[in-house]
């Protein structure tokens, strides 16, 4: 219950900052433009999912760390109150993650609503897109919190790590994967490749997008392991479960950190 009160305060604070509206507005404008110029077909959905894969992790992670720094005094004040630290953590985390995910959801959903995309047969793709965005927001806000807590006194370091971490996961990691493929491509590396993708949450989300939109290309691949993985229901289930696992890890890390930290 007390978590909810904290959450409420956070929410009011966010609204006063107007940041969150800007964030929702970005999605609204991008989605609107993409649907307006790309039609209400799969093309627009694909472009939106590309934007989602790019923007959600970046904003969530940076904002997660940043917000912790911003509300440092507020947190310290609350810590002096007779409050459970766990309650306080979930209040703070929920107070950021929930508005961020709602901003994303509304920003993407409203243009779809008024362009009539929700009645079509694309409803599954749209739901997947929304769910993925929300999960990524929760996940990367968690990572942002973790980084923020780890470098609570040193903002530059915390934000720097958040930025570099995003760059690594979004771009460099794939470069590494590509390098490995071209170095060891003659060996049967398909299973390790799949394992490698499971280790990066952005890649995982990307794979789920692929399974939804590019399945015909994936099925054109000449290898039994990929085909079995992607062709069956197991592919999407494994990827989904791994993403859930990913969601738990940073949250577990940050709750632990928050509980034991000497502010």
């Amino acid at each position, binding site marked *: 219950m007390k978590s909810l009160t904290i959450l409420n305060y956070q929410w009011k604070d966010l609204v006063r900052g107007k940041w969150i509206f800007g964030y929702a507005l970005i999605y609204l404008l991008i989605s609107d433009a993409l649907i307006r110029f*790309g*039609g209400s*077909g*799969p*093309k627009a959905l*694909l472009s939106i999912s*590309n934007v989602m*894969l*790019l923007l959600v992790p970046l904003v969530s992670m940076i904002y997660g760390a940043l917000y912790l720094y911003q509300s440092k005094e507020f947190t310290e004040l609350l810590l002096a109150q007779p409050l459970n630290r766990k309650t306080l953590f979930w209040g703070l985390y929920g107070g950021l993650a929930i508005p961020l995910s709602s901003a994303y959801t509304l920003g993407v959903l409203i243009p779809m609503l008024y362009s009539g995309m929700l009645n079509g047969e694309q409803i599954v793709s749209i739901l997947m897109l929304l769910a993925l965005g929300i999960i990524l927001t929760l996940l990367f806000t968690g990572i942002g919190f973790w980084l923020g807590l780890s470098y609570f006194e040193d903002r530059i370091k915390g934000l720097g790590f958040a930025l570099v971490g995003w760059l690594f996961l*979004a*771009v*460099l990691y*794939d*470069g590494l*994967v*590509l390098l490995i*493929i*071209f170095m060891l*491509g003659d060996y049967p*590396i*398909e299973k390790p*490749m*799949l394992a490698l*993708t499971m280790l990066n949450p952005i*890649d995982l989300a*990307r*794979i789920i*997008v*692929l399974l939804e*939109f*590019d*399945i*015909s*290309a*994936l*099925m*054109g*691949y*000449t*290898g039994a392991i*990929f*085909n079995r993985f992607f062709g069956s229901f197991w592919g999407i289930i494994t990827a989904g479960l791994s993403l859930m696992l990913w969601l738990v890890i940073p949250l577990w890390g940050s709750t632990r950190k928050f509980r034991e930290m000497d502010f």
Partner: protein
Amino acid sequence: MKVVIRIVFILIWGGLLGSADAQPLRVSQEGEIPTIAEALERAQPGDTLIIEGGTYREYNLVVDKPLTILGKDRPVIDGERQGFILVIKADDVTVKGLEVRHASTSFMEDYAGILVEKTNNTLIEDVRLIDNFFGIYLAETNKAVIRNNYLSASGERETSSGNGIHLWYSKDTRIEGNYVKGHRDGLYFEFVDGANIKDNLSEENIRYGIHFMYSDNCRYVANTFRDNGGGVAVMYTSNVEIIGNTFKDNWGSSAYGMLLKEINRSRIEENHFENNSVGLYIEATSRNMVTGNTFHQNGWAIKLMANSTDNEFKANNFIANSFEVATNSRRNFNTFSGNYWSRYEGYDLDRDGVGDVPHHPVRLFTILVEKQPQSLLLLRSLLIDILDAAEKVMPSLTPETLIDDQPQMKPLP
């Protein structure tokens, strides 16, 4: 008007004459003639056989004189896997309204539900062929018409299953409105000339929806081929018209919406390729017009091998394909112009509906995937987009001349 009256008069007169002259032979299990074999023996050339409803367990029924065979209440002829069922060896035979089941399966002989051999003017209409090895087998026929039939089989493997409608050395055949499912190849043509194939639906066959070779001057119009093991294969043929067909849902590492191999001087127009691993695969194929087609959500819209030359790709729509064009060389001998590409990122300052900068349909990533198929896993990665953008500015691996210099800004109707 006069002509019409005359025709009507002739028809009525002919009908009266026919009915007066030859009473139709009725085959019925309780009646005078209980088997089809007996009726075939007693019939005179030009007679009509009416087969009443019921199941007739007969096989190797040879029709060696011009007859009209009609089924009433859809009689079933069950071959009990003993051999051929109906063998037509005479000209001017019509078969309508039957159900033919269980021709024999063999590795040596091409047993068929209906075998038509060395005939003219055969008409097979509204026949159901269920669980036969081959369905309708035409060999050395002339002017046959196969219309509105339903063929289904449940073969598991290519070797134990035959083709649905099989044509060999046949001329001027019309194949219209048939449904074929679960055979090896839905439709199969070899050394066929001047066939007209229209409004057929061929799906869930083990190998190809349609498979044709050495069959010049044929027309394929408004057919649908979906979810076949290998899609559609078209080989070693000149002067074909493939117009308004739909190729759909063919998935797999060697499944193609349509595979063209050594096809020359042909027209491929207004077809719809949707949801295939590869929409159109082109190899050693020259001087064809590919116009007005739509490629929608395929893995690869077109795979164009470099031994194909002088093909023109004009006014096609490429919408939401994972890859637009893939090729295996840096040289290009074909032209692309005036197509709509949904991946096009250019602009149109003079507002004439044509993009001001050319479109490169072959991405760097297409080539990476050709070299190392495992890298397909990186599709839609930010890194790949960055690499593609860099390659677009300075092409070093992609074919420089494979471009569309008149990319449309809006999808073509």
